[in-house]
């Protein structure tokens, strides 16, 4: 064996790459099963008809989403088809307004503004924006904020007005609620009062 012989290392490079690609293919097939809508970690879109929490689970040593009883978004339960249409629109808002070039989702994106993974559960909606906007519910306060963020700054680094229509804002709120129900292996840790480790 001559370790300075390129053909020796060429064989190593080809075989290593092929083995790794095959393993990745199997893991990807399994991962798709888990993260498809309705899979073990990603709930169906009509989960927005339910109360969603985020609690510390001792068996996993991580915070996990908890799906509770009925709590329809905007006070009206939606069908699975209606929920899907809302999510498609919400995702298009997030892409068309380049939200993830300021915010992160699951920690991915840009770092100028807060992470949105559990934004639906953020205590700031009740503590700050509901009184500020004069709205009676979290979702109504979110819609008002998303349509006119520059009217409700909480800090020097404010959110710009990206001209969301009311329908777009409602779809975005629905998307954020669904997002908060995805099991993200405990990210973010200790989120808000409900996710804190006892």
């Amino acid at each position, binding site marked *: 064996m001559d370790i300075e012989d390129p053909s020796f290392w060429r064989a190593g490079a080809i075989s290593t790459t092929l083995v790794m690609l095959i393993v990745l293919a199997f893991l990807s097939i399994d991962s798709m099963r888990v*993260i498809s809508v309705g899979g073990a970690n990603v709930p169906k879109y009509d989960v927005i008809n339910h109360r969603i929490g985020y609690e510390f689970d001792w068996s996993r040593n991580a915070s996990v989403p908890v799906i509770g009883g009925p709590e329809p978004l905007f006070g009206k339960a939606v069908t699975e088809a209606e929920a899907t249409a809302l999510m498609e629109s919400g995702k298009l808002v997030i*892409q*068309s307004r380049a939200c993830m070039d300021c915010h992160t989702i699951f920690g991915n994106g840009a770092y100028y503004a807060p992470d949105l993974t559990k934004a639906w559960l953020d*205590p700031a909606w009740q503590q700050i924006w509901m009184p500020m906007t004069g709205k009676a519910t979290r979702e109504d306060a979110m819609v008002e904020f998303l349509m006119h963020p520059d009217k409700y700054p909480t800090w020097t680094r404010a959110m710009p007005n990206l001209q969301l229509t009311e329908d777009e804002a409602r779809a975005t709120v629905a998307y954020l609620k669904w997002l908060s129900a995805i099991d993200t292996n405990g990210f973010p840790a200790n989120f808000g009062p409900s996710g804190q480790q006892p």
Partner: protein
Amino acid sequence: MYRSQKLSLRYYTAAIALFGVMNLFGLLSALYYLYPSLLFNVFNFNMSKIMHIDTLVIWLLMGFLGAVYWYLPKELGREVEGMWLAELVFWVFCAAVAVVAVVFLFVQYGGANQFSLWFINQGRKYVEAPRWAALGIVVVMLVFAYNVVATCIKARRMTGIMWVLVLDLIPLLAVYLDAFPATTNMSVDLYWWWWLVHMWVESTWEVLIGCVMALVLMDVVGTSRRIVEAWLYIEVMLVLGAGILGLGHHYFWIGTPQYWLSVGGFFSALEPLPLLGMVVHAIYDAGSHGMKTNNQPAFYWITAEAFGNFIGAGIWGFMMTLPQINLFSHGTQWTVSHGHFAFYGAYVCGVIAVLYVAKQQVSGVDVLTGRAWKWGFGLLNFGMIGMVMALLMAGMAQAFFERAIGGSTLMAFTSASENPWFKSGMYARMFFGVVFVSGYVVLVYDLLTAPKRVPAAQAQPVAA
């Protein structure tokens, strides 16, 4: 000079210009942290950041294309096949970049519909360019692949480096096709998006720059082909052996199964190994030639590439890659610190090295040395290391106060961003950003200035 090398010079010119645009929007993006009301509702942070990171991708890609068009005829001993098409595509590429920039600057975003994704902004990090432009990049890469493969066939000659390059073109093209979907399910969207970002940046591009560096080492240091090819295969084996499943470190928190915590943690911990191999390789080659080179700036930039890649991508990546740490460091300025250092070390230094290789041949000097390049080298490296340290300081404050203690809520984010460690980090980043840009100005000056001629009788390789 071959016709494809003239095209290469055009690519280098476009790349260096876009490098400047990237710097400009980098400074602007840093300024928003200090003056948040800057251009508010006129040109917001997200658009500045898009300009910064998209020009980064494009100028590096242009640098790689330029490097391959430069070395291809030398490697195969003939002109590149289909040059007219390559030249046409260059101008189409430049025009497309200009149109996208104008749209980003003046239109910025549209409504929540497919039209916006096709013609304004796709809103997916690094691939924000609208779909028509992304299709244009596919065409550019197809023509590039045709040039490379057709030239190999016509030349009836294949070297080990060319085999690696040709095979690397397959994933380079294939994973870019993931720039188009707008999958509603964010977990699935990000799963494939990471194939694009990770497989390009941490695998395919690493192999591509490995090929380019192999060619540069033979050119500048005079390393033998046998050694260069053996090392290239070792690098490919380790980069892909660790990097393909190292992809798993992006799958910790996006909804994917728990086993990715172990798989990603283990393989990404191995990812510094190939980069360490490159350092050993560079030192081995330089040492075996008594540190003699006929192109001092290129030699220094290759060395910076080897160390920068290992420290910036390898060490800085390893520092935050284990899931127990990543749970808190992920998505903070710590990531930004790693991102800057990794891109700079892995790719920017390498592209600057090939620019100096071209400068030597264009100016016709036997030995390229001088003073100005040293200032550029020093300022760029000092500026980058300063920025990286400043961002690390800010990121660690965020990981601690926002993530570990505060629990990542809006108030936790706000209070961490008001923390003196974070704020002083942002000011320091701005200062070192200016240092970096001054280094860029010197670099451009040096590249455009004719080098001092050394009389032929005295033209001996100099000790680096």
